[in-house]
């Protein structure tokens, strides 16, 4: 047996608490120290591309507008990762459930939505989710970004379902047998014994999924959500200056980079932390 919890673990592992506080958080500090460096680099790039300080003013002028759009990207991604994670946990547990009545529909749903292009699912949701809903006599408009968020939730759910299935199946069967011989039922084994061991294995792919999701949110500009990409295009049209094209898009990329890079680093950091436990 060569698993992580195999028999030959008779060595004392140094406890993480023995490290200094500085050593513990060095990884995190490095993430934030790198920010100004990259910011400077991107700005220099933008300026060189435009070779004109007048362009800087244009970028600056449109910053609140692009930022406003970027908030929609963040909102859509948080909505989709939140509900996608909840749905994915259930769908993933369904994939490994003891009854075929549960596993087969769960597996079919997971495979269909995992192998569908995100843009197509997005279009489906934009057209299928109603424009307004009436709850208790009051009619609410369903904003475009919310309908797009539902469109992003579905592929996130299916991808997370696979992450859950993989993590659950990576736990040695001995854990299930020990739990069963101690009288644990399937659901209780899952909640008290299997899932807690899965969490640390799921965090890195989950953060990865979030980063991919965030970078997919500009797709929503195609269906008319006024997010960062849409707003950048609007700004470019308003300025009507072709020399602004490259710097403006570089600026937009920087926004995404600054949001996603710490997440990627954090996931690497968490991965290495869990490695030692």
């Amino acid at each position, binding site marked *: 047996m060569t698993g992580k919890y195999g028999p030959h673990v*008779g060595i004392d592992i140094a406890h993480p608490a023995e490290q200094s506080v500085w050593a513990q958080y060095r990884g995190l500090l490095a993430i934030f120290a790198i920010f100004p460096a990259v910011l400077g680099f991107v700005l220099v790039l933008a300026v060189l591309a435009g070779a004109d300080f007048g362009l800087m003013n244009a970028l600056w002028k449109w910053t609140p507008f692009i930022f406003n759009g970027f908030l929609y990207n963040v909102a859509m991604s948080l909505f989709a990762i939140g509900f996608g994670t909840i749905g994915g946990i259930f769908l993933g547990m369904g994939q490994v459930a003891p009854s075929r009545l549960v596993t087969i529909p769960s597996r079919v749903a997971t495979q269909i939505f995992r192998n569908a292009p995100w843009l197509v699912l997005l279009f489906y949701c934009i057209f299928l989710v109603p424009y307004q809903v009436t709850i208790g006599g009051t009619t609410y408009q369903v904003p475009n970004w919310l309908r797009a968020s539902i469109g992003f939730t579905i592929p996130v759910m299916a991808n997370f379902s696979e992450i859950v299935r993989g993590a659950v199946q990576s736990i040695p069967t001995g854990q299930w047998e020990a739990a069963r*011989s101690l*009288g644990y039922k399937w659901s209780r084994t899952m909640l008290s014994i299997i899932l807690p061991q899965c969490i640390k294995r799921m965090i890195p792919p989950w953060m990865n999924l979030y980063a991919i999701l965030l970078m997919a949110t500009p797709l929503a500009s195609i269906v008319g959500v006024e997010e960062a990409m849409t707003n950048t295009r609007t700004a470019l049209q308003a300025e009507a200056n072709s020399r602004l094209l490259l710097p403006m898009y570089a600026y937009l990329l920087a926004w995404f980079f600054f949001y996603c890079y710490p997440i990627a680093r954090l996931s690497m950091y968490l991965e290495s932390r869990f490695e030692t436990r």
Partner: protein
Amino acid sequence: MSSVASNPQAFVTVHDVYKSFGAAPVLQGVSLEIGRGEVVCIIGPSGSGKSTILRCINALTSVDAGFIQVGGIQVTSKKLDMVALCHKVSMVFQQYNLFPHKTALQNVSMAPIQVLRQNRRQVEERARALLKKVQLEHKADAYPGELSGGQQQRVAIARTLCMQPEVILFDEVTAALDPEMVGEVLSVIKDIAAEGMTCILVTHEMGFAREVADRIYFTDRGVIVESAPPREFFANPQDERTRSFLSKVL
């Protein structure tokens, strides 16, 4: 069925059990009767179905035919209540199978609290006493990954004892251990057996079997070839297969 359970003394009854995995027959009509307080060792070549017998007694493996009864509970019944069964039987595994995200103390105490719904304080008190019994009270807060193989197996034994079962099944519990750790685990088992616990052991430790067992069963190719008290079994094996096996391992 009642006519078959002839011996009222038997606490564990395995009657004419058949089991195959796919096309491979593993058990081909195994019968055993074990009385309360008896210590029984099952030995035999690998692949002879020793571990499968234990797994069937513990309902980890279903049987194809035959029946098993433990302390009045029909293990082979479709309506088996696992919680009722785990009051009677508990198992120690070759690979320990401790829960790596729980401390030694939590490993020992969690099932009585969560499954048997016993009082947390009393269970934890009992768990500490059991860790002391296996000489690991100083490791109560250690995680399994921080313990040696022998220590992990002793925690696993404490975990089964904390369920307060009436029979303990030991499935080659020293087979995965480094040689220098075998002794510490065997001495714990010897103590448990001496206290009158009913024990069924599958083992390759012949010397240990001779020392602790009240009776030894020899299995080969899915059947029990012979059974005898250890002195007789080792001194005067009846069957040719037993003789050939013993000549290889002794």
